[in-house]
């Protein structure tokens, strides 16, 4: 029973507590670019989730085989393979989504969420929890995208999933500045809720970045250590 509960936690942590977009601030590029409408957001979310589950499963299976030194290139190759498969499937079954996602479909390969989960979770855990972790993170990613997509579509084109609901359209919300603005407000909201619950507030996208270990030499490392200093001070106080 205890084990079952922990499996459930593996799945749910990605949706709320460690939401990859709103709490870890990973994968910002697709979050901003494809959320001009709710259906685009779902398309992107599902595609990324599929890649995330498959790559987490395979990387977890191979975690004892891949030498530590070449692990990042190995992960990237595995992820790129799955992205190509997903790209072909989307092209074949839903050309409209393929057109609207455009370049961001192949760019799933450099999405920090996927490499991040490979590095932080799948490379250290058995297959089944890794799949659940991938599923949870994918659902969290999709939910955040959908949230952004609905807000931007309602305000920007006055519709949800293409059905007209508002008579007015504020075009700026589906243009790039609107993307930055809505994302900023959403993160502020997540921060507000997190501080109420007494959790850590996001300060820089570097915190959750899978490459932060390799760039210890400059800013990311500094913000990290500053944060941990702050935490230490808070704990001491």
């Amino acid at each position: 029973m205890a084990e079952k509960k922990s499996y459930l936690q593996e799945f749910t942590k990605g949706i709320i507590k460690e939401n990859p977009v709103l709490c870890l601030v990973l994968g910002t590029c697709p979050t901003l670019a494809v959320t001009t409408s709710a259906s685009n957001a779902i398309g992107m979310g599902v595609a990324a989730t599929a890649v995330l589950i498959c790559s987490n499963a395979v990387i977890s299976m191979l975690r004892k085989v891949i030498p530590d030194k070449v692990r990042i290139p190995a992960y990237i190759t595995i992820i790129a393979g799955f992205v190509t498969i997903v790209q072909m499937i989307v092209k074949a079954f839903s050309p409209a989504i393929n057109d609207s996602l455009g370049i961001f479909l192949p760019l799933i390969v450099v999405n920090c969420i996927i490499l991040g989960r490979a590095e932080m979770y799948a490379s250290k855990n058995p297959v089944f929890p890794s799949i659940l972790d991938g599923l949870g993170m994918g659902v969290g990613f999709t939910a955040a995208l959908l949230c952004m997509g609905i807000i931007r579509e309602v305000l920007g084109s006055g519709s949800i999933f293409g059905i007209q609901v508002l008579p007015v359209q504020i075009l700026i919300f589906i243009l790039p500045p609107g993307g930055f603005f809505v994302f900023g407000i959403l993160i502020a909201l997540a921060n507000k809720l997190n501080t109420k619950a007494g959790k850590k507030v996001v300060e820089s996208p570097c915190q959750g970045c899978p490459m932060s270990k390799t760039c210890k030499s400059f800013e990311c490392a500094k913000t990290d250590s500053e944060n941990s200093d702050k935490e230490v001070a808070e704990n001491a106080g």
Partner: protein
Amino acid sequence: MLVKSLVSVFLAAILTENYVLCKFLGICPFLGVSKKLNTAVGMSIAVTFVMVLATAVTFPIYQYLLVPNDLAYLQTIVFILIIAGLVQLVEIVLKKYIPALYQSLGVYLPLITTNCAILGVTMLVLQKVETTSLYTYTYGHALVNALGAGIGFLVAMVMFAGVRSRLESADVPKSLQGLPITLISASLVALSFLGFSGFVDKLIPLA
């Protein structure tokens, strides 16, 4: 005509099609490394360098190796591996032969492999080859486009570093502190870049 189209591609890549502010590519370094002017400039120069180099290698490989052999579907996997290999190679070469440059740019290089702006530039340029109808889009255009994209990244980073240094002393509401206010100011910077839309077409009419 050739020079005209080259200038047009270059200006468009910097202003109207700015990869960070109009196409949302490379947002992570844009938000993460733009706190100080010198790191912002260092990162941008490294990105520009790798962008041009990556385009120089991937463009001929795609056109003359993948397309004739019906392997265009391997684009994603081939490009990301080329970029990853290239970044490693550049790092090793710089470390060995130009240690001074390595000192200033080296720290940014490992980050660049997973920068979507690089992969984005190399892939988007191939779509342009198919969609550009007014003139033939050559290897030269692709390289100029990559250079312009890098300089556009530099312009956006430097502008934004300036905005952020002003934010340091601003009195921001508690929930908006940190990333949210950064994103909202990015929104205003992006808004200013919308003003360039149509600018290049009017300046250099090609038709």
